């Protein structure tokens, strides 16, 4: 079993498009194969998360590939602080059991934002 995600660009600005391709080789055909753009927090507090977009492939074969495209939202932006980081990723999943994800950066500068002096 393997699922792979290849991003065309590892950093984009809000309003630009996150594109790439997911490929999968599974032992059986999944009922559902999905790709989503999501963010999550990491840090001192419990993880928070949000989904910005999702593409579902119905009746997917056991092997296949799918191009994806999501418009990067304006917020939240990729951020690094001492108490919390905000991370964006594209996740591919088969029937919610098997998932992989690839991190990317969404910010106006295409770099993780930090507070100056932090």
């Amino acid at each position, binding site marked *: 079993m393997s699922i792979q995600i290849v991003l065309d660009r590892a950093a984009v600005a809000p309003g630009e498009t996150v594109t790439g391709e997911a490929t999968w080789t599974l032992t059986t055909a999944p009922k559902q194969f999905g790709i989503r753009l999501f963010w999550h*927090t*990491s*840090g*001192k*507090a*419990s*993880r928070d998360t949000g989904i910005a977009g999702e593409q579902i492939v119905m009746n997917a074969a056991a092997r296949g590939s799918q191009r994806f495209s999501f418009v990067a939202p304006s917020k939240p932006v990729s951020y*690094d*602080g*001492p*108490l*919390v*980081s905000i*991370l964006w990723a594209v996740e591919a999943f088969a029937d919610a059991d098997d998932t992989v994800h690839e991190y990317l950066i969404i910010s106006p500068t295409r770099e*993780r934002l*930090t507070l100056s002096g*932090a």
Partner: protein
Amino acid sequence: MTPARLNPFRSERIESLAFRPTGPGQDLAGIQERWEKAGRRGAVVGPHGSGKTTLVEQLGRRLGDTTWVDVRPGVAPVTSSSVLLLDGLERLPWLTRRSWLAACCAPGLIATLHRPGCGLPVLLRTTTTPDVLENLVAELLGQPVDDHRAAECRRLFAEHRGDLRACLETLYRRWAGEESG
């Protein structure tokens, strides 16, 4: 400054730690056996930060079909076809705890408590030691703790009176550069 996503003491890593038995009979199989013998009702008892919730989460995964209930005032007694895992029972007024529990309808339940009570048999009393803290820190850092870190663990353990969660939160802040060690 260490960014939060690289802090070894970030919450998702703390939450992935397994319960550390500190004595015989504290393995999951032994606890489950006592729970079955007690009529599938019981409590994990221990002070703040001693691993009660972590242990009950692990028991829940072992049992399979369970429902997690965050008990607090205003939450109604639960009817469920799966085993209830009750956290926070002590948030209910003392007098209502027993009646709230009696009104729950489920094929079994496990609660976390700070002290024995509510008519629930004690399945395990969770305790902590400085060695457990050292062991957890070593796992989070991905390497054995050196003498300096071991001494820090012992100091923290004493300052927080054995509350491992509080110790790990302090280490998070120190790692983040908010607080000197």
